[in-house]
């Protein structure tokens, strides 16, 4: 019995010290002197602009990666084609590759001396969009692939035999089966896109009020010794993270019961 409670104590203690305490402390510090200073800090023109930039990056990256994710999952699972293994491995790469390396790669491709240089991609919004798309690319694919494997092709073949077109088969048979997996993938993609820091940091040029996303704004405020500004912006991002967590827990059981 001691072992059981001991293990519970160790597990929960580890989570408390590593995750819960630091995040709660920053929440507390932000609102230490009331709601006013925090609100003022996140409504400065630079903070509002940074939030806008972050929302633009997410609004482009998420739909692009969702459409790609569904197509790529279909290509990997449903069709045998040369190079499928390589596609599979490359899709996983952004999950673990250092975001600074991603940013540098974009810088070298689109920068002044790059193969595709001189089109205003780097140190501007297009470069930041490309960086965000890169790092948030795998999530929809990774969620949809196992579900497609599991449902098999029998129903799709039946629909095709009954004269349904490829599009009809997708809409009536495949989509209802994968939609929760897609939704879960979209939530993960959104969280990653909103929170991207390293890759965007390299390609943005970090001009406050111009090419600064909300994560870059957090760092900028902290390094300018504006603690309240940094904490308040961090809390905005953390609140979005909490909303994401709630969505994740809501969607997960549905995905698993399929």
């Amino acid at each position: 019995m001691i072992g059981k409670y001991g293990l519970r104590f160790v597990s929960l203690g580890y989570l408390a010290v590593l995750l819960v305490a630091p995040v709660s402390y920053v929440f507390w510090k932000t609102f230490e002197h009331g709601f006013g200073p925090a609100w003022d800090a996140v409504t400065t023109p630079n903070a509002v602009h940074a939030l806008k930039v972050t929302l633009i990056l997410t609004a482009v990256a998420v739909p692009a990666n969702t459409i790609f994710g569904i197509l790529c999952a279909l290509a990997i699972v449903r069709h045998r084609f040369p190079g499928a293994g390589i596609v599979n491995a490359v899709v996983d790469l952004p999950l673990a590759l250092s975001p600074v390396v991603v940013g540098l790669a974009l810088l070298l491709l689109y920068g002044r001396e790059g193969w595709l240089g001189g089109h205003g991609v780097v140190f501007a919004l297009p470069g930041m969009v490309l960086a965000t798309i890169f790092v948030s690319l795998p999530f929809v694919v990774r969620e949809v692939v196992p579900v497609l494997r599991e449902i098999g092709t029998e129903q799709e073949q039946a629909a095709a035999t009954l004269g349904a077109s490829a599009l009809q088969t997708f809409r009536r048979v495949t989509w209802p089966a994968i939609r929760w997996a897609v939704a879960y993938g979209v939530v993960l993609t959104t969280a990653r896109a909103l929170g991207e820091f390293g890759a965007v940091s390299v390609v943005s040029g970090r001009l406050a009020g111009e090419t600064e996303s909300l994560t870059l704004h957090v760092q900028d405020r902290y390094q300018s010794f504006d603690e309240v500004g940094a904490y308040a912006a961090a809390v905005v991002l953390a609140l979005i993270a909490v909303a994401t967590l709630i969505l994740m827990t809501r969607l997960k059981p549905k995905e698993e019961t399929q």
Partner: protein
Amino acid sequence: MAAKAAALPSPKARRSLAPGLAIGISTLYLSVIVLLPLAALAWRAHGWDAITSEQAVSSLKLTVIASAIVALVNALAGTAIAWTLVRDRFLGQGVVNAIVDMPFALPTIVAGLTLLALYGPRSPVDVNVAFTRWAILLALLFVTLPFVVRTVQPVLLELDREMEDAAASLGANRLATFRRIVLPNILPAILSGVALAFARAVGEFGAVVLISGNLPFKTEVASVYVFGRIESGDPGGAAAASVVILAITFGVLLGIGGVRRWATRHDR
């Protein structure tokens, strides 16, 4: 409905078009977004002096050692947390289960900032690890926490408890039951979680950059070293070190594929 169907091209013709489209679009998208930039990176990587410079070697060594320690701690802590979530029953378990995913949802720069606030120079609990190697371990442990938990948890859920009951009835104590029955079943999951955590730790930047202080030869990890090279106008050197990071990441990912194949073979 029938008239509409007749107006469409024959199902066969449309079906043969669809797979080509899916494969074509995904391959093109992957090439433009991922492969082309990485090709530019490899092309521009020059100066092996840059990789063998003392500062580069020191940062790469620190990164690999710290990531290995973090992966090991995750093997233990992640398995313990997964066990607590699956086999234990207590009030608020659902909330704890959701909290485990927090590092996936929280931006890394925010993670670093919160750790710095509580365990930094102005710590309210008098623990200051800022600008030390402990800070790097702490930051990496934060961002890699969910990996082992989330790979071990489903396997533990599926595990047939009759085997453990049988072992217990044959006189095995709890430790022996765990070591001989449970561990062999969850080991592939632990290994693949540990490898993911290791790969993630090797590339981590946002969580580390504020709290580690980035002191060359002491607390400068590989990603921060690359960032520094870019800032000081040495993209060639940055690219050279990046290729090393890329190789480690890709190698670990291939290894995970290997572990998964090994696991499914042992399943049958």
